[in-house]
């Protein structure tokens, strides 16, 4: 088993890139793209694959870096003004912009600390004034709203919603996440073991309906071995494993 390394969490690909640039103490305007790309890929490789959405965002940046890396090898492109273009320019601009907002967010945080110490007072209006509710002048409020405008707005809202629905993917069946809990599975195998003093591991797995159930069953068997509830034996490699209750 490999050594578990606690990875620093980054807010996104730009965050990670800034960290690498910082760590390597290199100039943001002259990123050594080969080294940084290698380090970046190294990190992405070690990422937790559980959340594919997050991983895919990091992968897009990885592709961008590789693209820049390959363009760096080619003769430099020249823009309309006859200047040589650096394939890294766009990335540098993005990094600078991101770095700026990250910096500003820290400034804001400082301000929050101070402003958070001010306390306010709840309104203490006399009851009769509190009760007073200004009448709503609907005519004024809705002066330039017509029924057909309202209709247009509704259609626009609905259209926006439909735009969001991907017409291709929405035809796919719904994939539901099935929850299989390890403690439940352990209980199940304990019961199973009570009924069969000695049983086949393969048979146990065959009785599981989905991949997730098989995986969790396997984990449950490992756990029960660890706690000494069961013993396992295997004659030869690839042979069936026999489980006995202790």
């Amino acid at each position, binding site marked *: 088993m490999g050594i578990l390394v606690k990875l620093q969490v980054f807010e996104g690909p730009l965050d990670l890139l800034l960290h690498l640039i910082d760590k390597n103490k290199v100039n943001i305007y002259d990123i050594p793209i080969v080294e940084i790309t290698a380090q970046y890929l190294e990190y992405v490789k070690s990422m937790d694959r559980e959340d594919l959405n997050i991983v895919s965002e990091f992968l897009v940046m990885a592709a961008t870096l590789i693209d820049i890396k390959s363009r760096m090898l080619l003769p430099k492109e020249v823009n309309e003004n006859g200047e040589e273009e650096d394939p890294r320019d766009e990335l540098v601009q993005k990094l600078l912009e991101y770095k700026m907002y990250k910096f500003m967010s820290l400034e804001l945080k400082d301000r929050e600390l101070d402003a958070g110490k001010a306390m306010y007072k709840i309104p203490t209006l006399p009851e009769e004034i509190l009760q007073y509710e200004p009448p709503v002048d609907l005519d004024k409020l809705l002066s330039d709203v017509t*029924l057909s405008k309202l209709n247009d707005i509704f259609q626009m809202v609905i259209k926006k919603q439909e*735009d969001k629905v991907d017409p291709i993917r929405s035809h796919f069946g719904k994939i539901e996440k099935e929850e299989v809990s390890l403690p439940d599975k352990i209980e199940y195998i304990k019961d199973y073991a009570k009924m069969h003093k000695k049983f086949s591991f393969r048979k146990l797995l065959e009785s599981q309906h989905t991949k997730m159930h098989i995986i969790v069953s396997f984990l449950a068997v490992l756990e029960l071995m660890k706690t000494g509830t069961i013993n396992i034996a295997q004659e030869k490699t690839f042979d069936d494993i026999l489980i006995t209750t202790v």
Partner: protein
Amino acid sequence: MEITKLEAAIEAILFTMGESVEIEKIAKAIQHDEDTTRKIIYNLMDKYQTEDRGIKIIELDNAFQMCTKPEMYDYLIKVASQPKRQVLTEVMLETLSIVAYKQPVTRAEIEGIRGVKCDHAVNKLIEYNLITEVGRLDAPGRPLLFGTTEDFLRKFGVQSLEDLPEISNDKYEDFKSEAEEEVQLKLDV
């Protein structure tokens, strides 16, 4: 510590609390005994007597409270009774249109259609009496259902909800085929 700082502290305490605060509590907060605290408060009360102050401190049993001077009452009524500036924002209009066409509708449904929270817009529309609670959905959590008001119908000269301009199925079909075309275009590229 200087007296002025303590006066400031007491002012801040009485302001934030709004209601009456026992001398015991104030004394603890400024870490002085009650007698000293009382002296400081009396001193502070004197300062409030001047003409340019609209608030004062009053003593009630063993407590003190900050309140407005009675002669300020007229101004307060003038502020409090001013109509709030009422505007229908784009967000509110969208929410209103969804309620109008999909009623009775829950907050969650509106949010589902718009893709963002709509608490503020819904509350404002209720305040303006354009939409109102019409019941609860028979579902877990029994969420509130909203619908348009009579004021809404009157304002738009609609006899009943059936009179609302129709959203025809044609339109839906249009949107659908439009969207599909777009995708087709993308695939062709």
